[in-house]
């Protein structure tokens, strides 16, 4: 076990009496104590030395408290042309008075829904940070979309973070979509501080029969953020879950995204783009578990890395013996723009069924010189030609964002970066 576990403020945080969920918290604490922070020998955190990073940066394992933001702050941080609903959080604490009342959807503090089976989807034994969150989460939110409800406009989970140096933000989100429900979530975090803090978030999503859930996330909190995010989804018969994860900055970011395919004829899609510069480090660990026949999963992650940035991709696909007729596809492509940028990519397919279609591929390379020359030979300046090619590369992920205002917001950020920085 790592020495970090002995950090006295960590002990205090683990023992602090938070609201409700005593049993779940105790389980989380136990699971965390069993696992400890990952050491450099940990296979799962081999390329992401997060414990070391935390040791250097987190002096005080205390949950950052809620703070005040105004309706004006909320408004000024919405995407241009955004027409959907907004749920506001400060340091992970839900702010009902600044949030939309969304017709037909139940939204409450997690502490008010004490029978929510937290930890039943994202199991604490699987990951130490998931366990740490379960042991000591800042309240959280419970969102339930009833059966057959079709929520046309997206729901924005707008997080404002302003932690004092070295503090911890541990939000917890529980989402359930009833049978035949359709809903889209956008996760966006605005960082109001310029000091290092640690965000350790867990999101559990339960999709009903034939439900359609879209889950988008933008990570652009700047270079001082250490973030671990565990997102896990159960999808059932005829259901569909699609996620898009866009990572543009972060000192060290680790995303664990898992889809459990529990019903046939369902579909899980995971798309990701990491566009990194400086010393940013972004690690995407994904996991699709096919347990039943006739389901499909698609995965496309793309990375553009400049300067000293580092990207990690690990894509696990399990196809259990019963999961015949599974179609599972995975692709990870990277472009390195600097000699000092590094990508570690690893597809990991474990297939027990014998009648399946599975494919995976990963590429890491430089910008296509032939394509660059072709554009230049038509009179386009080299820098602009590079930008065009890189944007085209990134566009394949961005096009999976359905909400126009959010897609445009992300596209502008990406184009700005590609035009100016690269």
């Amino acid at each position: 076990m790592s020495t970090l576990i002995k950090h006295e403020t960590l002990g205090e945080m683990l023992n602090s009496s938070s609201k409700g969920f005593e049993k779940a918290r105790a389980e989380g604490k136990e699971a965390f104590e069993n696992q400890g922070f990952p050491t450099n020998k940990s296979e799962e955190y081999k390329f992401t030395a997060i414990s070391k990073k935390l040791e250097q940066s987190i002096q005080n394992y205390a949950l950052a408290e809620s703070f005040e933001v105004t309706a004006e702050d909320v408004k000024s941080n919405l995407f241009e042309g955004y027409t959907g609903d907004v749920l506001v959080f400060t340091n992970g604490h839900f702010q009902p008075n600044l949030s939309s009342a969304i017709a037909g959807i139940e939204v409450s503090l997690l502490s008010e829904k004490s029978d929510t089976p937290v930890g039943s989807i994202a199991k604490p034994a699987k990951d130490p940070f998931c366990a740490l969150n379960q042991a000591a989460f800042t309240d959280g939110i419970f969102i339930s979309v009833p059966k057959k409800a079709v929520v046309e406009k997206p729901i924005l989970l707008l997080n404002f973070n302003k932690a004092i140096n070295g503090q911890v933000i541990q939000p917890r989100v529980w989402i359930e979509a009833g049978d035949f429900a359709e809903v889209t979530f956008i996760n966006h975090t605005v960082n109001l501080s310029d000091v290092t803090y640690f965000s350790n978030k867990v999101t559990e999503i339960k999709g009903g029969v034939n439900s359609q859930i879209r889950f988008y996330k933008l990570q652009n909190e700047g270079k001082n953020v250490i973030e671990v995010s565990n997102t896990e989804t159960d999808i059932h018969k005829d259901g569909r879950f699609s996620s898009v994860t866009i990572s543009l900055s972060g000192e060290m970011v680790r995303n664990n995204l898992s889809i459990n395919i529990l019903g046939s004829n369902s579909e899980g899609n995971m798309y990701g783009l990491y566009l990194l510069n400086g010393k940013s480090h972004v690690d995407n660990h994904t996991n699709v578990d096919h347990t039943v026949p006739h389901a499909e999963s698609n995965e496309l992650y793309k990375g553009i890395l400049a300067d000293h940035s580092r990207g990690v991709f690990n894509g696990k696909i399990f196809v259990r013996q019963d999961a015949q007729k599974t179609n599972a596809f995975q692709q990870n492509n990277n472009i390195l723009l600097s000699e000092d940028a590094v990508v570690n990519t690893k597809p990991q397919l474990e297939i027990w069924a014998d009648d399946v279609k599975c494919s995976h591929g990963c590429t890491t390379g430089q910008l296509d010189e032939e394509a660059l020359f072709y554009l230049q030979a038509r009179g386009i300046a080299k820098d602009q030609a590079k930008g065009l090619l890189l944007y085209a590369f990134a566009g394949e992920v961005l096009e999976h964002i359905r909400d126009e205002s959010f897609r445009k917001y992300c596209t502008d950020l990406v184009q700005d970066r590609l035009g100016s920085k690269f």
Partner: protein
Amino acid sequence: MLSIKNLHASIEGTPILRGINLEVKAGEVHAIMGPNGSGKSTLASVLAGREEYEVTEGEVIFKGIDLLELSPEVRAREGVFLAFQYPVEIPGVSSTNFLRTAVNQVREYRGLEPLDAVKFLTLMKEKMKLVEIDQKLLSRSLNEGFSGGEKKRNEIFQMAMLDPTLSILDETDSGLDIDALRIVSNGVNQLKSDKNATIVVTHYQRLLDYIVPDFVHVLYNGRIVKSGTKELAMELEEKGYDWIKEEVDSKATV
């Protein structure tokens, strides 16, 4: 317009061009022929500014400017156009956006107002007729999934849009069926004027039935070993390249 003197170029230390001399005047069509590996495509690439090739000796003066000093994009803006032997497929870059960016950067360099969307579309429609290219093709990603013939037609279409002074067609005929060849040649012929010039690089004489050259040069081992008129091309068609090789090789041994 173009004056190439004693041009030597190599790739990764291997010399390919070993002293090319060529004068091209406005209004002329020059055909560069030669067996495979003689340096034809290298010459085209060096003129367009492909970076892999290192010019070790000689000069290329285009409209009084030292062409070799310029980046590929500035050469294009000055009026050099290379129709690629293998046009590149670029997924995610729409043909139309690409062309508009290119046309406007070229126009800006030439001191012309950028074209707005309407004017650009009008110009595009006019030039599309030239090579009978379908608008549907241009709404797709650049060259992605285009057939061989469509790619070559798209090259000539781009040439029409960019209005070059010197067009270099690198094996534009290879792999084309006779209909596509007619369409492509017809486009090139319509773009010809007394102010611009064309260099046609080809292995086969067939293309020269459609794009009639004023001069034919035979490239072998990195040098122009024979020059003539279109009759030379007919002779090559009839007799192949061996007699030229023999002629050159025997001279070399003397």
